[in-house]
């Protein structure tokens, strides 16, 4: 009889359900097999405890029992799968050409960002003698203008003109509503001054239609449009 057969028959032995020959064979095995004897002993104590009705089941050698259980658990735990081999280290070796290209790209991007930041942060004073014009544009600004990143002086002037025209339209509407309440002197003075300004607007518009690059006329057109707006605004209050 081997241990496996013995362990299967231990329960039947304790319940006196084995035939005499089988019971003798089991007892014989338990006599020389310490492992099976311990199992039989443990099982006997459990059955006895159940028969006695005790709530607490205490094995005769609990420490040894837990040690065996622990050994069994550990023996049944599967070994951890082997870790995949670490990837081969990537090579960062770059050529001088790549490095130069990267430096150039970074320089261009940072220059562009710095330019726009400064341009937006530092507004040139309106009375600056060197007001922006095509003649005063730097090469870098001209390049940016060509590729559409910044507006040209002509585009800036057209944008300002549209803004001014919108404001003039607004103030003109207000003047029209107030005009009937003015006295004759005020009406005549307003008309005279508006006519002078309109003549200047007409002159500069004609010059610019012939020579859009004439920055001085563009600047003067800005100024007289501003004068016109101020005249309308101030007289709208009367």
């Amino acid at each position: 009889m081997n241990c496996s057969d013995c362990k299967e028959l231990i329960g039947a032995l304790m319940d006196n359900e084995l035939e005499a020959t089988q019971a003798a064979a089991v007892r014989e095995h338990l006599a020389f097999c310490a492992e099976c004897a311990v199992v039989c002993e443990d099982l006997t104590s459990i059955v006895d405890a159940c028969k006695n009705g005790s709530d607490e089941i205490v094995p005769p050698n609990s420490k040894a029992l837990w040690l065996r259980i622990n050994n069994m658990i550990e023996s049944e735990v599967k070994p951890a799968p082997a870790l995949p081999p670490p990837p081969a280290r990537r090579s960062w070796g770059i050529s001088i050409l790549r490095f130069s290209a990267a430096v150039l790209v970074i320089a261009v991007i940072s220059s562009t960002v710095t330019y726009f930041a400064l341009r937006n942060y530092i507004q040139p004073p309106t009375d600056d003698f060197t007001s922006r014009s095509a003649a005063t544009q730097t090469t870098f600004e001209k390049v940016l203008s060509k590729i559409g990143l910044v507006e040209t002086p002509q585009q800036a002037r057209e944008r300002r003109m549209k803004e001014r025209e919108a404001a003039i339209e607004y103030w003109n509407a207000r003047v029209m509503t107030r005009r009937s309440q003015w006295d004759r002197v005020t009406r005549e003075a307003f008309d005279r001054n508006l006519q002078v300004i309109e003549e200047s607007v007409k002159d500069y518009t004609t010059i610019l239609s012939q020579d859009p690059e004439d920055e001085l006329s563009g600047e003067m057109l800005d100024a007289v449009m501003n004068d016109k707006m101020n005249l309308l605004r101030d007289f709208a209050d009367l």
Partner: protein
Amino acid sequence: MPLRRENVFSRQTVVKTTMLLSVVFFFALFSGEASAQKRFSKNYPAGQNVRLRLMNRTGTVTVIGWNKAQINISAELEAPAANIVPQNLSGLIDINLLRDNQDREIGSVNFTIRVPYTAMVDIETRIGNLSVTNITSALVRAHITSEGAITLTNIEATNVAAENTIGDIFFDGTIREGGTYRFSSSKGSIALRIPFNASFKMMATAPSTRNISLGSFANADTNYLGDGRRVLGKFNGGSATITVTNQRGTIAFLGR
């Protein structure tokens, strides 16, 4: 007898009636004059750093600096007379006829204002002449929205601005180091009389007439741009900044 009494009574009645009519006539005459032109006068104590701000609608404004710690405002008001309510705001005398006469028709108001010669002067009108004289301070500003002449004489200020649409501008004063001087007109003549040794950089623009006379200031440091429509110049180091723009008129620099 009754007839005689009637004649006497009639003569007395005629005399009384004549006297009464005369009184009524003179009263009506003087009251009519009073409504046609009124006067306004007020004094304010002022420190050396006082600032005068005046917004007129129509009429002349004359500001004169004097050696008194006092501001004297006097005005002649044409009918219908305007309300004048000066405000004394901690160092600022503020007179604003547009604010004080909103939505009401008013006649011309001609101001004569005396201020300490160190006062800052900021005057503005819609129509009418402006004159400022004998001021030594940080600011002199004269602005006419439409038409009128601007005369600034004996001025020694760090910031000077004179603007109108139609009318002459005349400045006679000194140029302070680092100062800013701006003169602008659409139609008229602009003349600046400044010391020979003044240190300033200048930009004068007369696009229509191209008539920019530098007089004794014409030297090698001038640069003509845009076919003579603009002149840039730098004199004696170029400390102050003078900007002159006359859209349809002339510009003249006079040395003194």
